[in-house]
């Protein structure tokens, strides 16, 4: 799979800018969200789940729904998710890499053009992603980019588990490529 790396930013640039964004916004969010917290993405999806839960009487007093439905950080993160979509769009347009795509080309190469199969995997994968993020208190952003930087005990375990679960799943999904150690 050829990737045109010359059209992308260097990892060092992206990584340093991300860290500056983390630290700068930490002060802002601590001031406006009524608690100290490193920015994450999960609560933004939780905000959508909480909005959906309004239609279910049994979930009115649910602590998870309460947390995502009423805390200011969930509202902020909901708009952060919207901002991510706009940011991704702008970056792709400005670098002229925006292209509509249904299924990832790499997936098609190994698993065929059947969209039913891919959509089933996407639905299952994203439900597990949401469930796991809610249980482990954050996603890659909250637990690794932020939690590891804080040396947070819980995040170190969560982040390591992300990799463990991901590596095993990737090997099962791509068995023919996972085994060899070819680097170049």
């Amino acid at each position, binding site marked *: 799979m050829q990737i045109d790396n010359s059209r992308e930013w260097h*990892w060092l640039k992206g990584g340093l800018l991300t860290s500056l964004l983390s630290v700068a916004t930490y002060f*802002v969010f601590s001031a406006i969200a009524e608690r100290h917290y490193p920015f994450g993405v999960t609560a933004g*999806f939780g905000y959508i789940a909480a909005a*959906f839960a309004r239609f279910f009487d049994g*979930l009115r007093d649910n602590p*998870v729904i309460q947390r995502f439905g009423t805390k200011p950080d969930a509202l902020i993160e909901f708009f952060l998710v919207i901002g991510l979509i706009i940011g991704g769009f702008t970056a792709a347009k400005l670098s002229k890499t925006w292209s509509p795509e249904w299924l990832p080309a790499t997936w098609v190469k190994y698993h065929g053009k059947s969209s039913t199969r891919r959509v089933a995997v996407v639905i299952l994968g994203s439900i597990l*992603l949401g469930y796991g993020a809610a249980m482990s208190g954050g996603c890659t952003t909250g637990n690794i980019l932020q939690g*590891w*930087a804080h040396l947070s005990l819980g995040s170190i375990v969560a982040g390591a588990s992300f990799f463990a679960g991901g590596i095993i799943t*990737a090997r099962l999904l791509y068995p023919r490529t996972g085994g060899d150690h070819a680097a170049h």
Partner: protein
Amino acid sequence: MLLIKILFGLITGFLFGYILTRTGVTKYPRVMGMLLLKDFKILKFMLTAVISSMILFYLLGDAGLLTLSLKTLDWGKLVGGLIFGVGMGLLGYCPGTLAARIGEGKRESIIALFGMAFGIFIYAWTIKPVKSALLTGEITGDISVLLGINHWFIIIPAAVLFAGIIWLANKHVSDDRVNF
């Protein structure tokens, strides 16, 4: 006040999404390549961000300018983390990159957005048994609390370790192609 929250959420998300897409870490072959140990651009990006923000957070914390926020350690971190990892392996991206991908025109990620929210909804349904089984016996703190030493004795070795991983990955694997 509500407007400020909305605005800062939008601005932060915009900048973060711009960085993610522009650096190419939202790409399916890069994420799967990392999990298959074949492409390390995302790992290098991530560890760079961690080293840099770790040092900045703790310098500012020691200077009394900010209060660190630490997540609690319980069994949910391990079990939830593994479930999240399986989800990430199936999808080929994570929640933040999922949102940026929607902006890039990757249409299947729209399904994933609702799937992710639905996953949290299911979590809310199951919170009672999960809480009693997994979310007990909590420890809160940074890793130096557990080891009982000054945090700089962890920060510096951690930064050296991560920098070593970045150096090794960068030396052996090119970012120009994902080999599968």
